[in-house]
C-alpha cells in the first residue's frame, strides 16, 4: 500500500515539474522521470511486458528525441514562461474542473466494482496471440503508419538548402 502512494507522489511531483518548470530541458528530464515512474507502476501492476516497452520506447527513445531537439535548438533564447493569456487560463481551469468532476463521479460510483483480477501467468502469451490474430489488421496498419512517419520525418528534416546561410554555426561533429 505504501509503495502505491510513494509512486503516485513521485509521479505527481515530476508531472508538475514538466508543466511548471521554467527551463524546457528540465521539463524534458522531468517527463523522462514521469514515464519511468509510470513504467514502475505498470511493473507493480504486473504488466512487465508493457513496463519494459514503456521504458524502451517512451522513456528510452522519445525522451532522447526531446533532448536532442533541445540541443539542436538553442533554447536559452526561448524561455517557456511567457505571459499567459487570461482567457485561456480561465477556460482551461474550467475545463479541468469539469473533467475532474466527471471523473470523480465515475470513479466514486464504481470504485467498489473495480477490484483487481489476477490475470493468470499465461496472460502474456494470450496477449500476444490476440495481438497477432484478432488485432492482425490494426497491427499491420500501425506498421504502415510507422512507414509514413519515417518517410515524413526524412522528407521534412533532411531537405537541403543550397544557400547555407541559415545553417551558420552548425557543427558537423565529424572529423574533417
Amino acid at each position, binding site marked *: 500500500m505504501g*509503495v502505491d502512494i510513494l509512486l503516485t507522489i513521485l509521479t505527481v511531483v515530476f508531472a508538475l515539474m514538466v508543466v511548471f518548470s521554467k527551463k524546457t530541458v528540465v521539463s524534458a528530464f522531468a517527463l523522462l522521470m514521469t514515464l519511468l515512474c509510470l513504467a514502475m507502476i505498470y*511493473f*507493480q501492476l504486473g504488466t*512487465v*511486458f508493457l513496463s519494459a*516497452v514503456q521504458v*524502451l*520506447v517512451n522513456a*528510452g*527513445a*522519445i525522451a*532522447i*528525441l526531446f533532448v*536532442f*531537439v533541445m*540541443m*539542436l*535548438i*538553442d*533554447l*536559452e533564447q526561448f524561455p517557456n514562461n511567457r505571459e499567459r493569456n487570461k482567457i485561456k487560463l480561465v477556460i482551461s481551469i474550467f475545463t479541468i474542473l469539469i473533467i475532474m468532476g466527471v471523473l470523480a463521479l465515475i470513479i466514486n460510483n464504481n470504485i467498489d466494482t473495480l477490484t483487481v483480477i489476477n490475470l493468470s501467468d499465461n496472460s502474456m*502469451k494470450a*496477449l*500476444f*496471440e490476440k*495481438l*497477432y*490474430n484478432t488485432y*492482425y489488421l490494426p*497491427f*499491420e496498419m*500501425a*506498421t*504502415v503508419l*510507422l*512507414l509514413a*512517419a*519515417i*518517410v515524413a*520525418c*526524412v*522528407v521534412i*528534416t*533532411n531537405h537541403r538548402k543550397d544557400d547555407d546561410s541559415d*545553417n551558420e*554555426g*552548425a*557543427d*558537423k*561533429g*565529424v572529423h574533417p
Partner: protein
Amino acid sequence: MEFASFIVFFVIACTLGGVLLGISSLLGQKRKIVRKNDVYESGVNAVGSATRQYDVKFYLTAILFLLFDVEIVFLLPWAMTFNQASNQAFLLKGFIFFMVILLVGYIFVINSKALKWDE
C-alpha cells in the same frame, strides 16, 4: 515479491552511488582556485557558449532509431509466440508483410542519404 526485489535492488544501487559521491566530497581536499573552475577549451579562453546549434544528422539518427526501434520491439513478442502457435502460416504472412514494410522504409532512408555523414 518481484517488485519488492526490484525496489530493494534499485534503492541499494542508488545508495551505493550516493555514498561513493559523498565519501569523495567529504575526504577530498578543497582549494579555491578560480582558474580551475573555468571552461576547459584546450587551455585557451573559451569562445561562446556550449549551447549552440549542432548538426541535424544527430537528430535524424535519433528519430530513425525511435521508429525502427518501435518496429523491432513489436517483433519480439511475435518471435516468442511463433514456435507454439497453431496457425504458423498466418503468422508468417503477417511477418512477411511487416518485413516488406520495414524494408521499404529502410530503403527509403538509405536512398535519401539522410544518414550519410561523409559529405
